[in-house]
Protein backbone atom coordinates (compact mmCIF):
# COMPACT_ATOMS: atom_id res chain seq x y z
CA UNK A 1 0.00 0.00 0.00
CA UNK A 2 1.32 3.40 -0.90
CA UNK A 3 1.36 5.82 1.97
CA UNK A 4 -0.18 9.22 1.24
CA UNK A 5 2.39 12.00 0.92
CA UNK A 6 3.09 13.94 4.08
CA UNK A 7 1.18 17.21 4.16
CA UNK A 8 3.16 20.34 3.29
CA UNK A 9 4.50 22.13 6.35
CA UNK A 10 2.25 25.03 7.34
CA UNK A 11 3.15 28.12 5.34
CA UNK A 12 3.86 29.95 8.61
CA UNK A 13 6.73 27.54 9.24
CA UNK A 14 8.37 27.84 5.82
CA UNK A 15 12.00 29.02 6.12
CA UNK A 16 12.73 32.63 5.17
CA UNK A 17 15.31 31.58 2.59
CA UNK A 18 17.67 34.38 3.59
CA UNK A 19 21.33 33.44 4.11
CA UNK A 20 22.08 33.36 7.83
CA UNK A 21 18.47 33.03 8.93
CA UNK A 22 16.84 29.66 9.56
CA UNK A 23 13.56 30.92 11.03
CA UNK A 24 11.31 33.94 10.72
CA UNK A 25 11.81 34.56 14.42
CA UNK A 26 15.47 35.21 13.62
CA UNK A 27 14.46 37.69 10.90
CA UNK A 28 12.14 39.52 13.29
CA UNK A 29 14.87 39.71 15.94
CA UNK A 30 17.22 41.14 13.32
CA UNK A 31 14.63 43.81 12.40
CA UNK A 32 14.17 44.59 16.10
CA UNK A 33 17.94 44.86 16.59
CA UNK A 34 18.23 47.09 13.52
CA UNK A 35 15.47 49.33 14.87
CA UNK A 36 17.16 49.67 18.28
CA UNK A 37 20.46 50.46 16.53
CA UNK A 38 18.83 53.12 14.32
CA UNK A 39 17.13 54.82 17.30
CA UNK A 40 20.39 54.71 19.28
CA UNK A 41 22.29 56.22 16.33
CA UNK A 42 19.67 58.95 15.99
CA UNK A 43 19.99 59.76 19.71
CA UNK A 44 23.80 59.89 19.37
CA UNK A 45 23.45 62.01 16.22
CA UNK A 46 21.16 64.45 18.05
CA UNK A 47 23.52 64.69 21.00
CA UNK A 48 26.62 65.12 18.85
CA UNK A 49 25.25 67.92 16.70
CA UNK A 50 23.32 69.83 19.32
Amino acid at each position, binding site marked *: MTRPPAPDPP*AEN*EPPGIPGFRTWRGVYLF*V*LGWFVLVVALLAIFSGF*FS
Partner: protein
Amino acid sequence: MNLADWVVLLGTIVGIAAYGSWRTRQIKSLNTYLKGGQSIGWGTIGLSVMATQASAITFLSIPGQGFESGIGFVQNYFGLPLALIIVCAVFLPIYRRLGVYTAYEYLGRRFDDKTRLLCAGLFLLQRGLAAGVTIYAPAIILSTVLGWRLDLVIVGAGLLVIIYTVTGGSQAVSLTQRLQMAVIFGGMVTAAAVLMARLPDGLGITGTAHVAGALGKLHAVDVSLDPARRYTLWTGLLGGLFLSLSYFGTDQSQVQRYISGPSLRESRLGLVFNALLKIPMQFFILLLGAFLFVFYQFGHPPVFFNQSEWRRHAESDHGETFRAIEERYDAAVAASQAAIRDWVRAREADDAAAASGARAVMVEANRRAEAVRGEAKAALRAADPRAKTKDSDYVFITFILTELPHGAIGLLVAVMFAAALSSKAAELNALGTTTTIDLWRQLRPLAAADEARNVRVARWFTAFWGFVAIGFALFAGFAENLIEAINILGSIFYGVILGIFLVAFFFRRVGGSAVFVAAVAAQAIVIAMYLSLNLGYLWYNVIGCAICIAGSLSLQAVVGPRTPRPVGRAT
Protein backbone atom coordinates in the same frame (compact mmCIF):
# COMPACT_ATOMS: atom_id res chain seq x y z
CA MET B 1 10.12 75.19 -16.49
CA ASN B 2 11.49 75.05 -20.02
CA LEU B 3 11.12 72.50 -22.84
CA ALA B 4 13.69 70.09 -21.34
CA ASP B 5 11.75 70.04 -18.05
CA TRP B 6 8.48 69.37 -19.84
CA VAL B 7 10.02 66.54 -21.86
CA VAL B 8 11.37 64.90 -18.68
CA LEU B 9 8.13 65.45 -16.75
CA LEU B 10 5.69 64.24 -19.38
CA GLY B 11 8.00 61.51 -20.68
CA THR B 12 8.36 60.08 -17.18
CA ILE B 13 4.83 60.39 -15.88
CA VAL B 14 2.81 59.65 -19.02
CA GLY B 15 5.37 57.04 -20.12
CA ILE B 16 5.05 55.05 -16.88
CA ALA B 17 1.23 55.28 -16.95
CA ALA B 18 1.12 54.17 -20.61
CA TYR B 19 3.52 51.30 -19.94
CA GLY B 20 1.43 50.10 -16.98
CA SER B 21 -1.79 50.24 -19.00
CA TRP B 22 -0.27 48.47 -22.00
CA ARG B 23 1.35 45.66 -19.98
CA THR B 24 -1.88 44.87 -18.13
CA ARG B 25 -4.45 45.60 -20.82
CA GLN B 26 -5.79 42.03 -21.17
CA ILE B 27 -6.63 41.14 -17.58
CA LYS B 28 -9.86 39.15 -17.33
CA SER B 29 -9.55 37.20 -14.06
CA LEU B 30 -10.70 38.73 -10.77
CA ASN B 31 -7.73 37.24 -8.91
CA THR B 32 -5.31 38.95 -11.32
CA TYR B 33 -7.28 42.21 -11.34
CA LEU B 34 -7.54 42.48 -7.55
CA LYS B 35 -4.43 40.59 -6.40
CA GLY B 36 -2.13 40.83 -9.41
CA GLY B 37 -2.44 37.08 -10.01
CA GLN B 38 -0.36 36.63 -6.84
CA SER B 39 2.78 36.64 -8.98
CA ILE B 40 4.53 39.75 -7.69
CA GLY B 41 8.02 39.32 -6.19
CA TRP B 42 9.13 40.64 -2.80
CA GLY B 43 11.15 43.53 -4.23
CA THR B 44 8.15 44.90 -6.09
CA ILE B 45 5.92 44.31 -3.04
CA GLY B 46 8.42 46.20 -0.87
CA LEU B 47 8.58 49.15 -3.28
CA SER B 48 4.82 49.04 -3.75
CA VAL B 49 4.15 49.18 0.01
CA MET B 50 6.63 52.06 0.29
CA ALA B 51 5.14 53.92 -2.68
CA THR B 52 1.61 53.53 -1.31
CA GLN B 53 2.57 55.18 1.97
CA ALA B 54 4.86 57.83 0.48
CA SER B 55 2.58 60.24 -1.32
CA ALA B 56 3.59 63.54 -2.91
CA ILE B 57 2.96 65.12 0.48
CA THR B 58 5.89 63.09 1.82
CA PHE B 59 8.26 64.78 -0.60
CA LEU B 60 6.74 68.27 -0.41
CA SER B 61 5.84 68.57 3.26
CA ILE B 62 8.48 66.51 5.04
CA PRO B 63 11.49 68.58 3.87
CA GLY B 64 9.37 71.56 4.97
CA GLN B 65 8.88 69.92 8.38
CA GLY B 66 12.66 69.47 8.62
CA PHE B 67 13.16 73.12 7.66
CA GLU B 68 10.57 74.50 10.08
CA SER B 69 10.64 72.18 13.10
CA GLY B 70 13.73 70.01 12.65
CA ILE B 71 13.96 66.26 12.25
CA GLY B 72 11.89 65.30 15.33
CA PHE B 73 9.07 64.16 13.02
CA VAL B 74 11.14 61.02 12.36
CA GLN B 75 9.87 59.72 15.73
CA ASN B 76 6.44 59.39 14.11
CA TYR B 77 7.84 56.32 12.32
CA PHE B 78 9.35 54.58 15.36
CA GLY B 79 6.36 52.27 15.77
CA LEU B 80 6.50 51.18 12.13
CA PRO B 81 9.13 48.38 12.27
CA LEU B 82 7.47 46.90 15.36
CA ALA B 83 4.06 47.04 13.68
CA LEU B 84 5.40 45.37 10.55
CA ILE B 85 6.83 42.49 12.62
CA ILE B 86 3.35 41.95 14.11
CA VAL B 87 1.71 42.16 10.67
CA CYS B 88 4.21 39.58 9.30
CA ALA B 89 3.73 37.23 12.23
CA VAL B 90 -0.02 37.53 12.91
CA PHE B 91 -2.08 39.35 10.26
CA LEU B 92 -0.46 38.19 7.04
CA PRO B 93 -0.59 34.41 7.65
CA ILE B 94 -4.32 34.67 8.41
CA TYR B 95 -5.10 36.71 5.28
CA ARG B 96 -3.11 34.34 3.10
CA ARG B 97 -4.52 31.17 4.69
CA LEU B 98 -8.07 32.40 4.10
CA GLY B 99 -7.34 33.62 0.57
CA VAL B 100 -9.29 36.84 1.10
CA TYR B 101 -9.41 39.76 -1.32
CA THR B 102 -9.92 42.32 1.46
CA ALA B 103 -9.06 42.52 5.15
CA TYR B 104 -12.74 43.11 5.94
CA GLU B 105 -13.74 39.81 4.34
CA TYR B 106 -11.99 38.13 7.26
CA LEU B 107 -14.17 40.05 9.73
CA GLY B 108 -17.31 38.76 8.00
CA ARG B 109 -16.16 35.19 8.61
CA ARG B 110 -14.85 35.76 12.11
CA PHE B 111 -17.78 37.91 13.32
CA ASP B 112 -20.73 38.73 11.07
CA ASP B 113 -21.76 40.84 8.09
CA LYS B 114 -22.60 43.98 10.07
CA THR B 115 -19.11 44.14 11.60
CA ARG B 116 -17.57 43.57 8.18
CA LEU B 117 -19.74 46.33 6.69
CA LEU B 118 -18.92 48.70 9.59
CA CYS B 119 -15.19 48.27 9.07
CA ALA B 120 -15.42 48.43 5.29
CA GLY B 121 -17.60 51.55 5.66
CA LEU B 122 -15.11 53.25 8.02
CA PHE B 123 -12.33 52.43 5.58
CA LEU B 124 -14.27 53.77 2.58
CA LEU B 125 -15.14 56.97 4.47
CA GLN B 126 -11.63 57.61 5.77
CA ARG B 127 -9.73 56.53 2.66
CA GLY B 128 -12.25 58.16 0.31
CA LEU B 129 -11.68 61.51 2.06
CA ALA B 130 -7.90 60.97 2.15
CA ALA B 131 -7.93 60.19 -1.59
CA GLY B 132 -9.18 63.73 -2.19
CA VAL B 133 -6.32 65.13 -0.08
CA THR B 134 -3.79 62.90 -1.86
CA ILE B 135 -4.63 64.51 -5.17
CA TYR B 136 -5.31 68.03 -3.87
CA ALA B 137 -2.14 68.38 -1.81
CA PRO B 138 0.47 68.33 -4.58
CA ALA B 139 -1.90 70.04 -7.00
CA ILE B 140 -2.39 73.14 -4.84
CA ILE B 141 1.35 73.53 -4.22
CA LEU B 142 2.49 72.84 -7.79
CA SER B 143 -0.22 75.00 -9.32
CA THR B 144 0.66 77.86 -6.93
CA VAL B 145 4.38 77.87 -7.63
CA LEU B 146 4.25 76.95 -11.31
CA GLY B 147 1.29 79.15 -12.14
CA TRP B 148 -0.75 76.25 -13.51
CA ARG B 149 -4.52 76.14 -13.17
CA LEU B 150 -5.40 74.13 -10.05
CA ASP B 151 -8.47 72.49 -11.57
CA LEU B 152 -6.51 71.34 -14.63
CA VAL B 153 -3.75 69.80 -12.49
CA ILE B 154 -6.30 67.94 -10.34
CA VAL B 155 -8.32 66.70 -13.32
CA GLY B 156 -5.22 65.84 -15.42
CA ALA B 157 -3.46 63.85 -12.68
CA GLY B 158 -6.75 62.28 -11.59
CA LEU B 159 -7.68 61.08 -15.08
CA LEU B 160 -4.19 59.69 -15.71
CA VAL B 161 -4.27 57.56 -12.57
CA ILE B 162 -7.86 56.44 -13.26
CA ILE B 163 -6.89 55.21 -16.74
CA TYR B 164 -4.13 52.83 -15.73
CA THR B 165 -5.68 51.74 -12.43
CA VAL B 166 -8.99 50.90 -14.08
CA THR B 167 -7.24 49.16 -17.00
CA GLY B 168 -4.79 46.94 -15.14
CA GLY B 169 -6.00 46.86 -11.53
CA SER B 170 -3.60 45.68 -8.84
CA GLN B 171 -0.98 44.47 -11.33
CA ALA B 172 -0.78 47.85 -13.06
CA VAL B 173 -0.55 49.58 -9.68
CA SER B 174 2.40 47.42 -8.52
CA LEU B 175 4.14 47.63 -11.91
CA THR B 176 3.91 51.41 -12.15
CA GLN B 177 4.79 51.90 -8.46
CA ARG B 178 8.10 50.10 -8.99
CA LEU B 179 9.03 52.50 -11.81
CA GLN B 180 7.68 55.53 -9.96
CA MET B 181 9.82 54.68 -6.93
CA ALA B 182 12.88 54.54 -9.22
CA VAL B 183 12.04 58.07 -10.42
CA ILE B 184 11.51 59.22 -6.81
CA PHE B 185 14.82 57.80 -5.56
CA GLY B 186 16.67 59.25 -8.57
CA GLY B 187 15.07 62.65 -8.12
CA MET B 188 15.68 62.91 -4.39
CA VAL B 189 19.33 61.88 -4.76
CA THR B 190 19.71 64.55 -7.48
CA ALA B 191 18.17 67.21 -5.23
CA ALA B 192 20.40 66.19 -2.31
CA ALA B 193 23.50 66.28 -4.53
CA VAL B 194 22.66 69.78 -5.80
CA LEU B 195 22.01 70.98 -2.24
CA MET B 196 25.38 69.64 -1.06
CA ALA B 197 27.11 71.30 -4.01
CA ARG B 198 25.43 74.64 -3.25
CA LEU B 199 26.36 74.77 0.44
CA PRO B 200 28.73 77.64 1.32
CA ASP B 201 32.42 77.04 0.63
CA GLY B 202 34.30 75.55 3.54
CA LEU B 203 31.21 74.56 5.50
CA GLY B 204 30.88 70.97 4.25
CA ILE B 205 28.35 68.39 5.37
CA THR B 206 29.64 68.19 8.95
CA GLY B 207 29.76 71.97 9.33
CA THR B 208 26.23 72.24 7.95
CA ALA B 209 25.06 69.61 10.44
CA HIS B 210 26.72 71.52 13.29
CA VAL B 211 24.96 74.76 12.29
CA ALA B 212 21.62 72.95 11.92
CA GLY B 213 22.14 71.26 15.28
CA ALA B 214 23.09 74.48 17.04
CA LEU B 215 19.93 76.11 15.68
CA GLY B 216 17.77 73.27 17.07
CA LYS B 217 17.00 71.42 13.83
CA LEU B 218 18.66 68.07 14.58
CA HIS B 219 16.87 66.99 17.73
CA ALA B 220 15.72 63.55 16.55
CA VAL B 221 14.78 61.90 19.84
CA ASP B 222 12.67 63.66 22.47
CA VAL B 223 12.01 61.71 25.69
CA SER B 224 9.60 64.33 27.12
CA LEU B 225 6.46 62.92 28.78
CA ASP B 226 4.37 66.03 28.01
CA PRO B 227 1.19 64.64 26.34
CA ALA B 228 0.64 67.88 24.40
CA ARG B 229 3.89 67.39 22.45
CA ARG B 230 3.13 65.83 19.09
CA TYR B 231 6.38 64.03 18.39
CA THR B 232 8.25 62.30 21.20
CA LEU B 233 9.87 58.89 21.59
CA TRP B 234 6.73 57.71 23.42
CA THR B 235 4.14 59.01 20.94
CA GLY B 236 6.27 57.49 18.20
CA LEU B 237 6.64 54.12 19.89
CA LEU B 238 3.12 53.75 21.23
CA GLY B 239 0.94 55.99 19.02
CA GLY B 240 3.12 55.24 15.99
CA LEU B 241 2.88 51.50 16.69
CA PHE B 242 -0.91 51.61 16.80
CA LEU B 243 -1.15 53.92 13.75
CA SER B 244 1.24 51.72 11.75
CA LEU B 245 -0.38 48.49 12.91
CA SER B 246 -3.75 49.77 11.87
CA TYR B 247 -2.48 51.20 8.58
CA PHE B 248 -0.41 48.22 7.49
CA GLY B 249 -2.56 45.52 9.07
CA THR B 250 -6.08 46.69 8.30
CA ASP B 251 -6.02 49.40 5.62
CA GLN B 252 -6.94 47.72 2.36
CA SER B 253 -4.67 50.02 0.32
CA GLN B 254 -1.70 48.35 2.07
CA VAL B 255 -3.17 44.87 2.59
CA GLN B 256 -3.85 44.62 -1.14
CA ARG B 257 -0.22 45.38 -1.92
CA TYR B 258 1.34 42.62 0.19
CA ILE B 259 -1.23 39.83 -0.30
CA SER B 260 -0.34 39.96 -3.99
CA GLY B 261 2.83 37.90 -3.43
CA PRO B 262 3.05 34.33 -4.75
CA SER B 263 3.89 33.02 -1.28
CA LEU B 264 3.85 34.04 2.36
CA ARG B 265 7.64 34.37 2.15
CA GLU B 266 7.54 36.96 -0.66
CA SER B 267 4.87 39.00 1.15
CA ARG B 268 6.82 38.91 4.40
CA LEU B 269 10.09 39.91 2.75
CA GLY B 270 8.34 42.88 1.11
CA LEU B 271 7.24 44.08 4.55
CA VAL B 272 10.65 43.40 6.15
CA PHE B 273 12.17 45.56 3.37
CA ASN B 274 10.01 48.45 4.62
CA ALA B 275 10.69 47.71 8.30
CA LEU B 276 14.41 48.12 7.64
CA LEU B 277 14.38 51.10 5.27
CA LYS B 278 11.49 53.36 6.26
CA ILE B 279 13.07 55.18 9.24
CA PRO B 280 16.41 55.81 7.44
CA MET B 281 14.50 57.07 4.37
CA GLN B 282 12.36 59.48 6.40
CA PHE B 283 15.44 60.61 8.30
CA PHE B 284 17.23 61.55 5.09
CA ILE B 285 14.22 63.46 3.74
CA LEU B 286 13.94 65.38 7.02
CA LEU B 287 17.69 65.95 7.09
CA LEU B 288 17.40 67.40 3.59
CA GLY B 289 14.91 69.90 5.04
CA ALA B 290 17.22 70.76 7.97
CA PHE B 291 20.11 71.29 5.52
CA LEU B 292 17.84 73.48 3.38
CA PHE B 293 17.36 75.62 6.48
CA VAL B 294 21.14 76.11 6.74
CA PHE B 295 21.42 76.67 2.98
CA TYR B 296 18.92 79.51 3.21
CA GLN B 297 20.78 81.01 6.20
CA PHE B 298 23.60 81.77 3.75
CA GLY B 299 21.44 82.82 0.82
CA HIS B 300 18.60 85.25 0.33
CA PRO B 301 15.51 83.41 1.53
CA PRO B 302 12.09 84.95 0.93
CA VAL B 303 10.42 86.09 4.13
CA PHE B 304 7.47 83.88 3.17
CA PHE B 305 8.03 80.86 0.90
CA ASN B 306 4.56 80.85 -0.64
CA GLN B 307 5.57 83.80 -2.82
CA SER B 308 2.35 83.75 -4.79
CA GLU B 309 0.32 84.37 -1.62
CA TRP B 310 2.84 86.95 -0.40
CA ARG B 311 2.88 88.93 -3.65
CA ARG B 312 -0.92 88.90 -3.81
CA HIS B 313 -0.97 90.93 -0.60
CA ALA B 314 2.29 92.84 -1.09
CA GLU B 315 0.90 94.33 -4.30
CA SER B 316 -2.36 95.38 -2.62
CA ASP B 317 -3.16 98.37 -0.38
CA HIS B 318 -1.04 96.84 2.39
CA GLY B 319 2.07 96.94 0.20
CA GLU B 320 3.98 99.36 2.42
CA THR B 321 3.65 97.16 5.51
CA PHE B 322 4.81 94.12 3.55
CA ARG B 323 7.82 95.90 2.03
CA ALA B 324 8.86 97.11 5.50
CA ILE B 325 8.72 93.53 6.76
CA GLU B 326 10.85 92.38 3.81
CA GLU B 327 13.46 95.03 4.63
CA ARG B 328 13.49 94.06 8.31
CA TYR B 329 13.84 90.40 7.34
CA ASP B 330 16.75 91.09 4.96
CA ALA B 331 18.56 92.93 7.77
CA ALA B 332 17.79 90.14 10.28
CA VAL B 333 19.03 87.46 7.85
CA ALA B 334 22.24 89.43 7.20
CA ALA B 335 22.85 89.68 10.96
CA SER B 336 22.12 85.97 11.36
CA GLN B 337 24.53 85.11 8.52
CA ALA B 338 27.29 87.17 10.12
CA ALA B 339 26.65 85.53 13.51
CA ILE B 340 26.77 82.04 11.97
CA ARG B 341 30.07 82.81 10.24
CA ASP B 342 31.51 84.15 13.53
CA TRP B 343 30.49 80.94 15.30
CA VAL B 344 31.93 78.72 12.57
CA ARG B 345 35.23 80.65 12.69
CA ALA B 346 35.39 80.38 16.50
CA ARG B 347 34.74 76.62 16.30
CA GLU B 348 37.40 76.16 13.64
CA ALA B 349 39.87 78.08 15.81
CA ASP B 350 39.11 75.69 18.70
CA ASP B 351 38.36 78.71 20.89
CA ALA B 352 35.74 77.25 23.25
CA ALA B 353 34.98 80.51 25.09
CA ALA B 354 34.58 82.50 21.86
CA ALA B 355 32.52 79.68 20.31
CA SER B 356 30.19 79.60 23.29
CA GLY B 357 29.62 83.36 23.11
CA ALA B 358 29.26 83.34 19.33
CA ARG B 359 26.77 80.49 19.54
CA ALA B 360 24.53 82.48 21.91
CA VAL B 361 24.70 85.47 19.54
CA MET B 362 23.90 83.20 16.55
CA VAL B 363 20.89 81.61 18.27
CA GLU B 364 19.55 85.03 19.25
CA ALA B 365 20.10 86.44 15.73
CA ASN B 366 18.30 83.45 14.24
CA ARG B 367 15.45 83.88 16.73
CA ARG B 368 15.07 87.51 15.59
CA ALA B 369 14.97 86.48 11.94
CA GLU B 370 12.32 83.86 12.74
CA ALA B 371 10.38 86.49 14.68
CA VAL B 372 10.23 88.63 11.54
CA ARG B 373 8.89 85.59 9.66
CA GLY B 374 6.25 85.41 12.38
CA GLU B 375 5.43 89.09 11.80
CA ALA B 376 5.07 88.36 8.09
CA LYS B 377 2.51 85.66 8.81
CA ALA B 378 0.68 87.95 11.23
CA ALA B 379 0.60 90.66 8.55
CA LEU B 380 -0.87 88.19 6.07
CA ARG B 381 -3.55 87.20 8.58
CA ALA B 382 -4.30 90.86 9.30
CA ALA B 383 -4.64 91.61 5.60
CA ASP B 384 -6.79 88.55 4.95
CA PRO B 385 -8.02 86.30 7.79
CA ARG B 386 -8.35 83.46 5.24
CA ALA B 387 -4.77 83.82 3.98
CA LYS B 388 -2.70 80.62 3.98
CA THR B 389 0.06 81.38 6.49
CA LYS B 390 1.78 78.00 6.56
CA ASP B 391 4.62 78.15 4.05
CA SER B 392 6.79 75.16 5.01
CA ASP B 393 5.21 73.04 2.24
CA TYR B 394 6.66 75.52 -0.27
CA VAL B 395 10.27 75.43 0.92
CA PHE B 396 11.47 72.39 -1.02
CA ILE B 397 9.63 73.23 -4.24
CA THR B 398 11.05 76.77 -4.06
CA PHE B 399 14.56 75.30 -3.79
CA ILE B 400 13.85 72.98 -6.74
CA LEU B 401 12.61 75.77 -8.99
CA THR B 402 15.30 78.31 -8.11
CA GLU B 403 18.44 76.21 -7.58
CA LEU B 404 18.21 73.11 -9.78
CA PRO B 405 19.33 73.08 -13.44
CA HIS B 406 16.74 72.61 -16.17
CA GLY B 407 15.97 68.97 -16.78
CA ALA B 408 16.48 68.27 -13.08
CA ILE B 409 13.56 70.62 -12.35
CA GLY B 410 11.38 68.48 -14.62
CA LEU B 411 12.67 65.35 -12.87
CA LEU B 412 11.82 66.69 -9.40
CA VAL B 413 8.35 67.83 -10.47
CA ALA B 414 7.99 64.31 -11.90
CA VAL B 415 8.96 62.98 -8.45
CA MET B 416 6.01 64.86 -6.94
CA PHE B 417 3.60 63.57 -9.56
CA ALA B 418 5.01 60.01 -9.42
CA ALA B 419 4.49 59.99 -5.65
CA ALA B 420 0.98 61.42 -5.98
CA LEU B 421 -0.03 58.93 -8.68
CA SER B 422 1.49 55.90 -6.92
CA SER B 423 -0.33 56.40 -3.63
CA LYS B 424 -3.49 57.52 -5.39
CA ALA B 425 -3.51 54.40 -7.58
CA ALA B 426 -3.22 52.11 -4.54
CA GLU B 427 -6.06 53.99 -2.86
CA LEU B 428 -8.35 53.73 -5.87
CA ASN B 429 -7.48 50.06 -6.29
CA ALA B 430 -8.36 49.40 -2.63
CA LEU B 431 -11.52 51.49 -2.68
CA GLY B 432 -12.74 49.74 -5.84
CA THR B 433 -11.89 46.32 -4.41
CA THR B 434 -13.58 46.94 -1.05
CA THR B 435 -16.72 48.31 -2.71
CA THR B 436 -16.88 45.31 -5.04
CA ILE B 437 -16.06 42.54 -2.56
CA ASP B 438 -17.51 43.86 0.71
CA LEU B 439 -20.54 45.79 -0.55
CA TRP B 440 -21.59 44.80 -4.08
CA ARG B 441 -20.97 41.05 -3.74
CA GLN B 442 -22.72 41.07 -0.37
CA LEU B 443 -25.79 42.65 -1.90
CA ARG B 444 -25.61 40.53 -5.09
CA PRO B 445 -24.35 37.11 -3.88
CA LEU B 446 -25.47 35.33 -7.05
CA ALA B 447 -23.25 37.56 -9.17
CA ALA B 448 -20.13 36.34 -7.35
CA ALA B 449 -19.79 33.38 -9.73
CA ASP B 450 -19.66 35.56 -12.86
CA GLU B 451 -15.91 36.32 -13.11
CA ALA B 452 -16.09 38.70 -16.06
CA ARG B 453 -18.92 40.66 -14.48
CA ASN B 454 -16.97 40.97 -11.22
CA VAL B 455 -13.96 42.40 -13.05
CA ARG B 456 -16.24 44.81 -14.92
CA VAL B 457 -17.89 45.95 -11.68
CA ALA B 458 -14.51 46.35 -9.96
CA ARG B 459 -13.40 48.57 -12.87
CA TRP B 460 -16.53 50.71 -12.58
CA PHE B 461 -16.13 51.15 -8.83
CA THR B 462 -12.44 52.04 -9.22
CA ALA B 463 -13.38 54.71 -11.76
CA PHE B 464 -16.22 55.89 -9.50
CA TRP B 465 -13.85 56.48 -6.57
CA GLY B 466 -11.41 58.21 -8.89
CA PHE B 467 -14.07 60.71 -9.90
CA VAL B 468 -15.21 61.12 -6.27
CA ALA B 469 -11.60 61.99 -5.32
CA ILE B 470 -11.32 64.47 -8.20
CA GLY B 471 -14.62 66.09 -7.20
CA PHE B 472 -13.61 66.24 -3.54
CA ALA B 473 -10.24 67.79 -4.45
CA LEU B 474 -11.94 70.35 -6.71
CA PHE B 475 -14.61 71.52 -4.33
CA ALA B 476 -13.29 70.99 -0.79
CA GLY B 477 -10.88 73.10 1.24
CA PHE B 478 -8.24 71.36 3.35
CA ALA B 479 -6.20 71.95 6.47
CA GLU B 480 -3.04 73.95 5.96
CA ASN B 481 -0.53 71.30 6.91
CA LEU B 482 -1.40 68.58 4.47
CA ILE B 483 0.55 65.63 5.86
CA GLU B 484 -0.84 66.25 9.31
CA ALA B 485 -4.36 66.51 7.91
CA ILE B 486 -4.07 62.99 6.54
CA ASN B 487 -2.48 61.61 9.70
CA ILE B 488 -5.13 63.24 11.92
CA LEU B 489 -7.90 61.84 9.73
CA GLY B 490 -6.29 58.39 9.90
CA SER B 491 -5.77 58.54 13.66
CA ILE B 492 -9.45 59.32 14.28
CA PHE B 493 -10.61 56.16 12.48
CA TYR B 494 -7.66 53.76 12.58
CA GLY B 495 -7.68 53.05 16.33
CA VAL B 496 -11.21 51.67 16.30
CA ILE B 497 -10.62 49.60 13.16
CA LEU B 498 -7.47 48.16 14.72
CA GLY B 499 -9.41 47.41 17.91
CA ILE B 500 -11.92 45.33 15.92
CA PHE B 501 -9.12 43.33 14.27
CA LEU B 502 -7.23 42.76 17.52
CA VAL B 503 -10.44 41.45 19.14
CA ALA B 504 -10.90 39.18 16.11
CA PHE B 505 -7.35 37.81 16.35
CA PHE B 506 -6.82 37.51 20.09
CA PHE B 507 -10.21 37.28 21.86
CA ARG B 508 -11.93 34.26 20.40
CA ARG B 509 -14.84 34.37 22.84
CA VAL B 510 -16.01 37.83 21.73
CA GLY B 511 -18.82 37.81 19.15
CA GLY B 512 -19.94 40.17 16.40
CA SER B 513 -22.65 42.08 18.27
CA ALA B 514 -20.40 42.97 21.22
CA VAL B 515 -17.55 44.21 19.02
CA PHE B 516 -19.95 46.09 16.74
CA VAL B 517 -21.59 48.07 19.58
CA ALA B 518 -18.22 48.70 21.24
CA ALA B 519 -16.72 49.93 17.95
CA VAL B 520 -19.57 52.37 17.26
CA ALA B 521 -19.33 53.73 20.83
CA ALA B 522 -15.52 53.96 20.64
CA GLN B 523 -15.68 55.88 17.36
CA ALA B 524 -18.19 58.36 18.80
CA ILE B 525 -16.00 58.90 21.88
CA VAL B 526 -12.83 59.44 19.79
CA ILE B 527 -14.57 62.03 17.58
CA ALA B 528 -15.95 63.82 20.68
CA MET B 529 -12.47 63.82 22.28
CA TYR B 530 -10.86 65.16 19.10
CA LEU B 531 -13.37 68.01 18.94
CA SER B 532 -13.04 68.94 22.62
CA LEU B 533 -9.46 68.14 23.77
CA ASN B 534 -5.99 69.37 22.83
CA LEU B 535 -4.24 66.01 22.69
CA GLY B 536 -1.45 64.83 20.37
CA TYR B 537 -3.39 63.13 17.55
CA LEU B 538 -1.31 59.92 17.60
CA TRP B 539 -2.83 59.13 20.99
CA TYR B 540 -6.27 58.70 19.38
CA ASN B 541 -4.97 55.49 17.76
CA VAL B 542 -4.27 54.06 21.21
CA ILE B 543 -7.45 55.44 22.80
CA GLY B 544 -9.82 54.25 20.01
CA CYS B 545 -8.24 50.80 20.03
CA ALA B 546 -8.29 50.49 23.83
CA ILE B 547 -11.93 51.62 24.16
CA CYS B 548 -13.00 49.23 21.40
CA ILE B 549 -11.23 46.23 22.98
CA ALA B 550 -12.32 47.03 26.56
CA GLY B 551 -15.90 47.70 25.42
CA SER B 552 -16.04 44.45 23.44
CA LEU B 553 -14.78 42.39 26.38
CA SER B 554 -17.15 44.11 28.83
CA LEU B 555 -20.21 43.70 26.61
CA GLN B 556 -19.40 40.07 25.90
CA ALA B 557 -18.98 39.45 29.63
CA VAL B 558 -22.45 40.91 30.20
CA VAL B 559 -24.18 38.79 27.52
CA GLY B 560 -22.11 35.65 28.23
CA PRO B 561 -19.33 34.00 26.22
CA ARG B 562 -20.03 32.86 22.68
CA THR B 563 -18.95 29.64 21.02
CA PRO B 564 -16.09 30.41 18.59
CA ARG B 565 -17.11 29.83 14.98
CA PRO B 566 -14.71 28.30 12.47
CA VAL B 567 -13.15 30.70 9.99
CA GLY B 568 -12.91 28.94 6.62
CA ARG B 569 -10.96 29.56 3.44
CA ALA B 570 -12.49 31.49 0.56
CA THR B 571 -14.12 29.39 -2.13
